[in-house]
């Protein structure tokens, strides 16, 4: 093929995977950032509930959008509320490796005498 335009087309086609890869990396980066923001907000919601003497888990769930169902782990140790969110990803293994966590500590209610 000695058509330069054809050459450009071939290169464009060859570059499409690179473009798709870049788009994937960019979207994955954004998904991780968004998940971290969500985890932060949810952990704080859980901490507010703990400070008010209420359970943390429902407050955390209420602070997260529906798509996080099955992608969230909530743990509470005393006043520490930890939220782990797995960002959306077409690759489950990658999603697990990119999981973000956020922890907040708040004074829990004193034990009743």
């Amino acid at each position: 093929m000695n058509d330069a335009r054809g050459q450009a087309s071939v290169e464009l086609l060859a570059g499409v995977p690179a473009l798709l890869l870049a788009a994937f990396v960019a979207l994955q980066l954004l998904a991780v950032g968004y998940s971290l923001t969500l985890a932060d907000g949810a952990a704080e919601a859980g901490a507010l509930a703990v400070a008010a003497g209420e359970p943390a888990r429902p407050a955390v769930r209420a602070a997260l959008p529906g798509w996080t169902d099955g992608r969230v782990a909530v743990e509470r140790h005393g006043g520490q509320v930890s939220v782990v969110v797995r960002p959306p990803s077409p690759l489950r293994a990658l999603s697990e490796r990119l999981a973000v966590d956020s922890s907040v500590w708040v004074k829990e209610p004193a034990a009743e005498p």
Partner: protein
Amino acid sequence: MSPIGAARRTAAALHGFLFESESTLEDAGGPPRESHAADAEPVNGTAAPPVILASAIGGSGGAASLAAAIGVAATAGAGGGAALLVDVAGGQRRGPTVLASEAARELEDRVRGIGGVFEAAAARGNLCHLSLPDAEDPLEPVAALLAHELPASAVIVHMSQELWPRAIVEKRLSAAAGVLRAELPGDRALAALAVGELRDRGLRAKIVSDPLGRVASRRALAGLEPGGAASRRAARLARALLADHSGQGLPLVLGAAAALIFAALILAAIGGAITGTARAQRAADVAALSGARSMRDDFDRLFAPAFLPNGSRNPAHLSKAEYLARARAAVRHAARMNEVPAGRLLVRFPDADSFAPLRVRAKVRAEVDREALPGPDRARGGRRVGIQVVASAEAEASPPASWSGMPTMATGGGYSGPLVYRQGEGMRPDVAAAFDRMAAAARRDGISLLITSGFRSDAEQAELFEQNPDPTWVAPPGKSLHRCATELDLGPPSAYGWLARNAGRFGFLKRYSWEPWHFGYTRGPPPCSEAGNSIGAGGGERGSSGGVPSFVPARYREPIMRSAARWNVSAALLAAQILAESNFDPNAVSPAGAQGIAQFMPGTAASYGLKDPFDPEQAIDAQAHMMSDLLRQFRSIPLALAAYNAGPGAVAACDCVPPYPETKAYVARILGLLDGAGALVAPELEVRLVE
């Protein structure tokens, strides 16, 4: 190295860069060219100059000068060098000129060095002109010439239209483009056909309808820029014919990919900075909340008597300084646990001047790393300067907003004292306190007690009886002990066994053998008794004496009890109010102008006939009178207290404790005092962020 030589090498390097892909095409489809490394140093070891075919259609002329102008423009576009113009159209042989560039002469030497018909090469300006004689196959010597490495920016082959069809398919020429001089619109059909053929073969094509002028033609054929508009036209043509398309697709794609990732990184960096700021705010929020939580947990201890009846220090008591120190420690601990160093935290108590502060403010100074942000660095003295972020939050412990709406004075039954609520059911304060203890014990045994019914007025009982008029199960109105606020119906059924075994420990008695849920409180005053009615007016268990809490100075006990009896208001309530208002200082004057022990504003004092607000006995009596009115109006101790502090209008407007920090804190403090004095079981305070 001479400047010209350097310029030539630079131009050659640039040429190589610009036309790199053409060699790729050659490698892909054309025959390998003969190397003449021994004859001359190649300008670019692998690059071959692009070949442009030029001709004229029909009877038009001027193709030779057009080809020359394009050649000259190609040398300018390549940053120097010389172009080779080969004329196989039988044109006149042209001699060299004195204005020939060094590059053109070098090219001339190279071509002449091949020998034979190529010795006719002549350097003219930026061109090397070669006119080939007629031959059986005129394209043969051209192909032979192109097989050599030529230090040319471009090779333009001018031919007759008869040779054109063969030239465009001649693989040895490896033409990149074709330019045709045509008279339009007359030659439109022919031109369209020629362009179609060129494009079918992957060659760029240009049709030129306007010939160069006489002077421009002469200058072009002399290897000089034609000048003016002709130069610009030639440059445009050369760019169009020699434009390097190959190698552009990949940079475009890679550039887009890099831009995508760069944009995502910038967004991530901005997101990181926002997250950093949000985390500072979050740290301030939870630090303030932790402080408020500490206050809420310690609030009762603030009002516990400092000394036990045996004269020893009461370990449950906290002084205000200790109370604030504990809250401050809670704020600092929360900040540290959320990765805020102590040096970056400021703790303040906005209502620290009051005797029972309930508000705490935490201020966090954080720093967002500038490295995480896009844009230029701002380094000072070699140190990276972060972005300072200040986040502050204020939290408070206050009565639940929903709580004040419930009537806190029972009416319409056998009991007419204060009501407190557990699980939405009203009961006598001492009953509530006993229930709290019993519920806590049940929780420790894994049982959650439910209250299904508490105080019922006669009207409520009548309604119940009407639904189920069987005296065995529902007592007639006026007969039920529920009207005394001492009876509780408890559940769930799974707790009946536990209740039967343990309720007695907390003063509760199962009233009827057939009602395992019905328990009455027997440890306090009898149901529906006068003593029961006054339980909230000072009949508590802790720190009270004669209905007046122990914190009341001796000289005010008698006036308080007298006024309480006269206006039928809780003596403990009046005492707690005075403590909150003036700390029993008869000469107190507030910044707002409130005067005396009960802090009457002059207008209010006049409306209650209080002539001297600084006379404690008069002031206490007016206070009791006013509280009696407010309790009758609002039927709620918190609302009456709020009305005393903020005015009845503000309370009536919302039927709530108005959202003024001072009023909310005032109500909370007095409820806390009543609770601490055992006069009233106050509702649990809520911990929440204020801002």
